[in-house]
């Protein structure tokens, strides 16, 4: 310590570098001397990224987020987050002379007065819809390929939080224009908050600054929508990306790919061009979508009035499953001791985060069952993790069943079904469908595993039929090349954990806790007999290829 500081006093470290070759290098040297960019770039400029279409899903999330921020900033320049009342007087004739809030009036101005305002509004809304959808699909990609395993569990949580916050920010943004549809959504929220026991009424009065709807909710939502939640999301997003860089990307199994390397092309130039270009592709497509497809035409709904409603009140798709929960729940209310517990609303309100949390905690549950503490960078093919895949499919099916509950009126009118039947179907289906989907998916995965095994051991069907000397017809099978054999057999298979022996070495009965037993049971369910097809071994392969060579 001391010697270092004395020598520093004697002579500050001076650059001993050669003269830069040109202006650009000189500029880079200047920045490096202050920010240390060379050391940073050394590890990252030629960072390797593997290539696969499904790795673009996360990019779509990132790009739509950027588009949302850009267009959102533009909208704040014109939007007035105020519930002060004005008489509308603008170019949308049907509403002229009508008493509306400033929020609604300024949304109409953005749509009709500001040139390009409608376009930006629609890009903002479309991008939000795509953003949440892309996050959802991206999460599914990560789930079904096991990319959430160590060391990426925390990044999975960051991603999940982004999705959750995305839901809410979408809902808040939808509420801001103060039109009839969004007001109905806010009313829904108020009703849900009132159902919270003990504190619900207080939360509602504090949130709305008094009785519903009051005049505070739009400005308050505005701040949360444009500052609080996006701020948190931006932080999470940066952390998410830093971790992607730090962990390096996962990759599919294949020749030359191991747990210890990552094979792909370098960030500069290929991925800079591809990923940078992809941003423009996404932006371009969303702009074109906004040119041709109208989303949330608030002028058609009219301003919000608590005693009016439009008939097809529907939230954006991502809130649809919450809507389904609340629609199909029986109207249970408990009244006792001068209080009302509104279970019919409170239970769905609790189930909404629970359904989402179920998938959020999954990596930790799987990690506990397998007891695997190693890092995993090679992705699982969904078929090779039948139980995980089946659980994921069951979860999606629950989501879809509830979503259909959320659109029960639309389904009823479009398909001429009875609304009551749909509701009963959703009530029962929420329990039954996921179970059925679980078993079907699992069997399907096992079937695919069997087919892979078949291919490895007996080769692939060539479509050439050969007649054997004794008259039998057989299809010629061709051996798979080495790289295919390797790819199809490189996945790992766990064995179920076993319970420790009933008695220990000294013959004393051992206490086995409930947790240990549960874990053993689950492990059996995941990896036991019949829950995965043992992959072919080199010996089996050799025996077949040498013994039955004539096939």
């Amino acid at each position, binding site marked *: 310590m001391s010697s270092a500081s004395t020598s520093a006093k004697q002579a500050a470290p001076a650059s001993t570098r050669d003269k830069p070759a040109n202006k650009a290098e000189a500029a880079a040297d200047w920045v490096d001397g202050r920010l240390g960019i060379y050391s940073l770039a050394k590890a990252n400029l030629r960072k*390797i990224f593997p290539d696969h279409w499904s790795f673009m899903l996360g990019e779509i999330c990132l790009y739509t987020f950027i588009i949302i921020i850009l267009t959102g900033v533009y909208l704040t320049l014109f939007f007035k987050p105020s519930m002060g009342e004005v008489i509308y007087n603008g170019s949308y004739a049907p509403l002229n002379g009508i008493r509306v809030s400033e929020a609604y009036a300024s949304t109409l101005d953005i749509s009709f007065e500001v040139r390009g305002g409608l376009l930006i509004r629609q890009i903002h809304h479309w991008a939000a819809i795509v953003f949440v959808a892309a996050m959802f699909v991206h999460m599914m990609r990560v789930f079904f390929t096991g990319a959430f395993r160590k060391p990426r569990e925390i990044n999975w949580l960051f991603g999940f939080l982004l999705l959750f916050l995305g839901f809410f920010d979408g809902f808040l943004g939808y509420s801001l224009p103060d039109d009839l549809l969004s007001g109905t959504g806010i009313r829904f929220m*108020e009703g849900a908050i009132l159902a919270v026991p003990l504190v619900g009424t207080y939360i509602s009065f504090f949130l709305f*600054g008094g009785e519903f709807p009051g005049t505070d909710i739009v400005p308050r939502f505005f701040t949360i929508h444009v500052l609080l939640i996006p701020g948190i999301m931006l932080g999470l997003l940066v952390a998410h990306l830093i971790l992607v860089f730090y962990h390096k990307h996962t990759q599919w199994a294949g*020749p030359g790919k191991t747990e210890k390397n990552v094979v792909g092309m370098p960030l500069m130039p290929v991925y800079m*061009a591809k990923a940078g270009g992809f941003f423009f592709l996404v932006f371009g497509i969303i702009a074109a979508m906004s040119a*041709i497809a109208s989303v949330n035409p608030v002028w058609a709904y009219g301003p919000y009035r608590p005693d009016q409603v439009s008939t097809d009140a529907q939230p954006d798709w991502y809130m649809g499953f919450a809507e389904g929960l609340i629609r199909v729940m029986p109207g249970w209310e408990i009244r006792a001791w001068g209080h009302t517990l509104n279970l019919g609303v409170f239970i769905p309100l609790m189930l909404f985060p629970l359904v989402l949390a179920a998938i959020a905690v999954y990596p930790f549950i799987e990690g506990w069952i397998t*007891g695997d503490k190693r890092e995993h960078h090679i992705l699982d093919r969904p078929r090779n993790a039948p139980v995980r895949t089946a659980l994921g499919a069951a979860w999606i099916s629950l989501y879809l069943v509830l979503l259909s509950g959320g659109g029960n009126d639309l389904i009823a009118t479009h398909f001429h079904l009875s609304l009551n039947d749909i509701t009963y179907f959703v009530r029962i289906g929420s329990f039954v469908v996921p179970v059925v989907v679980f078993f079907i998916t699992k069997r399907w995965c096992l079937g695919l595993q069997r087919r892979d095994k078949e291919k490895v051991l007996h080769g692939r069907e060539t479509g050439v039929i050969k007649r054997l000397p004794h008259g039998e017809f057989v299809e010629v099978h061709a051996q798979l090349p080495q790289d295919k054999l*390797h790819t199809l057999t490189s996945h790992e298979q766990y*064995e179920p954990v076993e319970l420790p022996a009933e008695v220990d070495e000294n013959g004393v009965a051992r206490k086995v806790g409930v947790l240990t037993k549960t874990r053993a049971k689950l492990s059996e369910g995941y990896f036991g007999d019949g829950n995965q097809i043992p992959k072919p071994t080199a010996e089996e392969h050799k025996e077949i290829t040498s013994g039955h060579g004539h096939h």
Partner: protein
Amino acid sequence: MSDDKLPVAHDAAEGHGEAAVAENPFADPGLPPHEPRRTDIDERAAKRAERQVSLLFLVSMLATVGFIASYVSIDSDKIVYIFPLGHISALNFALGMTLGVALFCIGAGAVHWARTLMSDVELPAERHAIEADDETRADVIQQFKTGAAESGFGRRKMIRNTMIGSMALVPLSGVMLLRDLGPLPEKKLDRTDWNEATSDAPIRLVNMNTNEPMKPEDIVVGSLTFAKPGPSASRPAGLQESDEDFQEAIAKDALMLIRIQPNDIKDADSRDLGFEGVLAYSKICTHVGCPISLYEQQTHHALCPCHQSTFDLSDGARVIFGPAGHPLPQLKITTDASGYLVATGGFKHPVGPSFWERSE
């Protein structure tokens, strides 16, 4: 439980290279050799790709010019017919399309460039374990311990405890500051403007659309009429849109009036609250508060469009389907000396969604 059941890592068990391959048919043969693309070997193909990329960038430039031209030349209220989209705003369409093309072509150009002309040789990069080695770990833990010891945090219990106490208390100020977000609920949710009515000072029911008081004969069987409170002591002109608290008031006061042949009314109490078969129910759904807007005159069912709660208005607005938990509150009505429909008191039960403090 131990980890001895974990599968053996694949690459640890099987080596690379010829020998391993000969022995183990499943061994990793290593990265396949790079296969050159047309543009790698054929200079003409490469030149063509170059021109394609440039063309895309050029189209983008033209589209941006188109965007600016549309912005300055197309009126914002111009509507055009475009097949198959129908009648749409010309400006929105022109701006969106030109912007879309300008952006898309930049993206397409960059991606095409990367795919055809930049090197597509796949390279391996090594991964390093995220975990630190044991030496680093021990070092950091030692440093932390030294730091902790130097702070005396563990030794000076009084400092530690008071610090934890102060840290635990200080957020309370933040919580306190939230108190003035809104007033306390008190009994506000239990009352509506109708509560002001008494038999001495009744409040007339005023038609929501015409702003006129109504007589029982105005309510025909099978129709659904919406009403709001007429003049009262606190609102001499009745509830008006221009009232400052109109939204809050109408969210609780809104009524729907129907008429049912008195014999068809199944619930005797409900019949008594009405006047000659005219019944006044709260319009606000008891589920989460949407206004009810659909009425089926044959069955006397009212349907909430939000989550399809269905109420039988001939039977005290009992819930017959859907997620609502209790009937719509009914308002007792009668007529005044001039024969107009009036209320002489408030709803017996709070209107709208239920809440914890709601006592039946």
